[in-house]
Each structure stands twice: as structure tokens, then as C-alpha cells.
């Protein structure tokens, strides 16, 4: 039992109503803030995201401005602090701007997967029986493909482009989230408090809204957030193959692919975009892990 959720004696009736409404959320937040590693990861992600959002104010140079003299400039060159790319554009500025598309491509598909997969999973879990069979067997089919392979194939069939890539990735994240949602919902459905609610004769919609969703939302959200760390790798992978954003716009995956051509001249500049993908993926993973641990309220 963690200290923040005290036993019967520690919560004073006079105190309880003041913090009642979002007390669970508050407790989780407080416990998250106390974990040093996930907090650091969260701060790093925040910095990366803010930099991407306010790229126009932060980036030292125009990411599209080519300069022949600065072609493949080394790290530390004035005006090209993190080097220049094959057209002499500033790599640092392009990394900052590229974050916009990389992060959007990582987060949007998981958000779609969360809504569609979450809906399907909760439906399958609560309905059980044939509905469950139909939905979950369909999910199994998509599960039969390795996720990156499926994303590549669908994006490849649809043709290159940002929207198509996001669509393909969304399809990849629906089945795992649906599976997770189905398994927690099936479990919650068997709990006595849900059975008691059914016995009152309340409508299914009301039971789902008031009893089921509040208890399954947390685990599903945490699982979905853990998928962002997978998504950013897959999304950048699509761009790396040329299936994502099209030039002159760029994200980290496409930058990695372009800088790879100059690997013999400027090897470490070529590694930079990959380092950003790695950093963000690790941070998303650590944050989601931290939230999960903060949510583990032992009875």
C-alpha cells in the first residue's frame, strides 16, 4: 500500500469532499511527479515538442535555405552548428522543423488506434459471445502481420504521402489496442460491481459510461501511450523508405535517408536524425512506464 492512498483512518471526512472530484487523477499525477526517471523523460519530450511547435522562433536558420558553400558542413561550423546537409541546409533547423512531422506521424496513428481500437475492444469485451468472436478474430488477422511490414505494404499500395502513411499506421495500431481493451473490459465485466449494476436494470449504455469506462480507460490509455514509442519508429521507418512526407518538407526519417548518401563524408551528421527518433522513443517508453507505475494503486 502506497502512502498517498491511506487506510480508513487517515482520510478525514472534512478533507475528503474538497479533493473529491479528480482525486484519483491527482494521486496519479503526484506519484508520477515523484519518479525521477520518467519525469526527466517527460521534460525532454516537452522540450522537443515545444521546439517543434515554436520551430519558427527557435530554429537558427531557414530549414529550406540552401547554400552551396555549406554543403555537408561539419558539426560545429558557424551557422551550421550541427552540420549542413547535401544541399547546404542547416541540419539543426531541419531537425527542429522535422520534429513537427515526426511527432505528428507518431502520435496521430496511435490516437486513431485508441479511439477505433478502444471502441471495438470495449464493445467486444462487454458484449462477449458472437460479437466478441467476430471483432477479435478480425483483429487476429491483422495481428498475423508483423506491424512494420503491414504499415509498409498498405502505405506502399496507397502510394507515398503523409496522409496515406498516417492512415496505414493507424490501421496497424487498431488491433493491439483493441486486444488490450477487450481483455480489460472482459475482466471488469465479470466484477461484482458491474453485475450488481446490471441487476438494477440500468441500461447497457449507462453501465458502460459509469461503471466500465472509468475502470478500463486508465489501462487502455497507458497501453496506447506505450505504443507511441513503437509508432515513432515505424513512422520514421516509412519516411525513411520514402513513403511518408515528400521533399522539400522533411521529417527525421526522410532526413536520415537523405543524409545516408553522404555517410562517407560526414558520418556523424548522418546519425543525428536517428538519434532524435531513438531519444523520443525511449522517452515515450519511460513516460508511459512511469504513468503505469503511478497508476498501480495496490488494494
Amino acid at each position, binding site marked *: 500500500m502506497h502512502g498517498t492512498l491511506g487506510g480508513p483512518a487517515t482520510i478525514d471526512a472534512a478533507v475528503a469532499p474538497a479533493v473529491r472530484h479528480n482525486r484519483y487523477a491527482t494521486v496519479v499525477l503526484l506519484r508520477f511527479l515523484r519518479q525521477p526517471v520518467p519525469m526527466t523523460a517527460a521534460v525532454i519530450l516537452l522540450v522537443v515538442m515545444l521546439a517543434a511547435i515554436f520551430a519558427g522562433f527557435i530554429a537558427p536558420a531557414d530549414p529550406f535555405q540552401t547554400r552551396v558553400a555549406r554543403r555537408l558542413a561539419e558539426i560545429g561550423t558557424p551557422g551550421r552548428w550541427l552540420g549542413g546537409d547535401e544541399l547546404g541546409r542547416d541540419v539543426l533547423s531541419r531537425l527542429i522543423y522535422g520534429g513537427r512531422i515526426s511527432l505528428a506521424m507518431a502520435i496521430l496513428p496511435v490516437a486513431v488506434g485508441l479511439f477505433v481500437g478502444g471502441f471495438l475492444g470495449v464493445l467486444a469485451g462487454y458484449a462477449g459471445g458472437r460479437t466478441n468472436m467476430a471483432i477479435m478474430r478480425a483483429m487476429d488477422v491483422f495481428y498475423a502481420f*508483423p506491424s512494420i511490414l503491414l504499415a*509498409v505494404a498498405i502505405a506502399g499500395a496507397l*502510394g507515398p504521402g503523409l496522409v496515406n502513411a498516417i492512415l496505414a499506421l493507424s490501421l496497424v495500431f487498431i488491433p493491439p489496442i483493441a486486444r488490450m481493451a477487450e481483455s480489460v473490459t472482459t475482466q471488469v465485466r465479470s466484477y461484482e460491481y458491474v453485475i450488481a449494476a446490471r441487476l438494477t436494470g440500468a441500461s447497457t449504455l449507462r453501465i458502460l459510461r459509469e461503471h466500465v469506462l472509468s475502470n478500463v480507460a486508465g489501462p487502455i490509455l497507458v497501453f496506447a501511450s506505450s505504443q507511441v514509442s513503437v509508432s515513432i519508429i515505424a513512422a520514421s521507418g516509412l519516411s525513411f523508405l520514402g513513403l511518408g512526407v515528400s521533399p522539400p518538407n522533411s521529417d527525421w526519417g526522410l532526413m536520415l535517408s537523405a543524409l545516408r548518401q553522404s555517410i562517407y563524408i560526414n558520418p556523424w551528421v548522418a546519425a543525428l536524425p536517428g538519434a532524435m527518433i531513438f531519444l523520443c522513443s525511449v522517452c515515450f517508453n519511460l513516460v508511459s512506464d512511469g504513468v503505469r507505475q503511478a497508476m498501480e494503486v495496490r488494494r
Partner: protein
Amino acid sequence: MLLYVVRRLLYAVPIALGVTLVVFSLVHIAPGDPISALLPNEATEEMLQQARKEFGLDRPLPVQYAIWLGHAAVGNLGVSIGSGRPVADEVAAAVVNTVILAVSAGLLSCLLGFVLGMVAGLRRDGLIDHLVNLFTISGVSLPHYWLAILLVIVFSVNLSWLPPLGVGPDTSDGWRPDWAHLRHLILPTLATAAIPMAVIARTMRAGVVDVLDQDFIGTLRAKGLPPRRILWHVVRNALPTTLAVMGLQLGNMLGGSVLVETVFAWPGTGFLLASAIFQRDLPLLQGTMLVLAMFFVFLNLIVDLVQSATDPRIRRS
């Protein structure tokens, strides 16, 4: 046990059919007329008519699917637009290269992952445990295509030890198990094996730690069983989960092969898939996907059966 095998086999059938349906749909979600996607641009009106008839493209979709499935079942995957050769031949040639890479990476990741995980679990909080821990935390977040580039930077660019591209010194003839070809295999193998190895090591470590904490190990120790025999009990109990994870990781390796093979210009199925996409060669894309996905379904089946053979609890539940 036999009943379980039969049931599991029967369960794989609808999944496999569903997979073929998804692969079939790939051509139909592509923008444009599927017939123009299936034939080269310079195709004559005569060729178009013939293809329409052969694939029944003027008939309803379910009929088209049935025709396509019938063709696929006898190994007719259509003709590649890029090369004009049968897709089946192209895929077969690529499969050989992918299998070489998959086997070497699979062996490396399973053996090393297994041993590292076991040592880490047995010597908890030792040096290897900490290293494995660090590696597994970052391993799942490591973009493997980036790792491949890093390996090329270090071993090809900086050290000039190993070649960065291709299967061998000359691409004309097939793969041979000689040093010239093995040199080319090392970097792709490392790039492919690293992440599965991390995951397998983590699973094995967790399994070993879990088993060591159980009461029956204490009983065995108290009985005076020699450590070697106790180790056997530990491995046996940690094995089923690790095997399942190994299987899944092999599947993911296949998925990741698209990117790793692209980086190393390794002419396997992943490379084939990528080039099919760039040449808008939809028959080739479809055929390659079908073979890969079927292999993945088969792999899952094998994993389940092997796991149930090593873990009696699964058969009974």
C-alpha cells in the same frame, strides 16, 4: 495433445484466409484502375483484355478474390511489371537471401539472448545483469534502420573492416558459405539480431528470476540437489515463455527486414517489397506480402505448438 494440435491447426485456417483477403485488398485500395496497376504502362489493349479475362476483373469482387486465391494456391502470383518475370520466381529468389539473414540473425539473437538472460537472472544485480538491463530498456526503442547505419559508420566508414552493401563481392552468382560472403553477412546480421536479442534476454531473465523465487527451488536446494540439476529445473520452467517470445521476435525480424535490407541493399524479400513499392509493381508487392504473411502465420502456429509441447499447462487450459 493431438486434439490440441488439430484444434490449433483448424484455428489457423480462418486466420490464413483472412490474411489472404487483406493481401488481396492491397491492390484494390491502390488508387486507379486495378488493371492498369497490374500491367505495365505500355500494355496493349489486347493485353488489357486478356488480363481482365484472366483475373475476372469485370466480375464481382468475391469472384475476383476466389480466382486470385485459386491462382495463388497453385503458385501463380502473376507477373512482375518491373521485370516481366513471374512474381513467384522473383519472390523465391529473394526468400533464399532472407532465409540466410533470418537464420543467422535468429541463431545469434536466440543463443546470445538466452545465455545473457540466464546469466543476468542467475547473477542478479551483477555486471551482466545491469548491462542486459540497460540494453533491454533502450533496445525496444532502438530504430533498427538507424542501428544499421551506425554499424556501417563504425565498421565500414571509420574502421573499413566490413563491406557496407550487398550479399557478396559479386552479385551475379548465388550465395556461398565462404569468407567473402560471410563478411557481407556480419553487419546485416548484427543489425537484425540486436533488438530481438535484447527482448529475448529480458524475457529469459524475468523467467529465471521468477522461477528462482518460487518455493519449489528452495525445496530442491534443501533436498541437496546439485546446482547443475537445479539449473535444469530453472531452465525448464523459464523456457516456454522465452520460446514464445523468440517466435514473435522472429516474426518481427521479418517485418523489420524491409528497412534493414534496404540499408544494406540485401536482395531479400524486404528489399524486393521496397523496390516493388517504388516501381508501383503491385503484383510483386502483393505476392511478396502473401508469402511473408503466410510464413508469419505458419511461424505463429509452430510457436504455439512448440510452446504447448514444453508447457503442459497450455494444453489443459
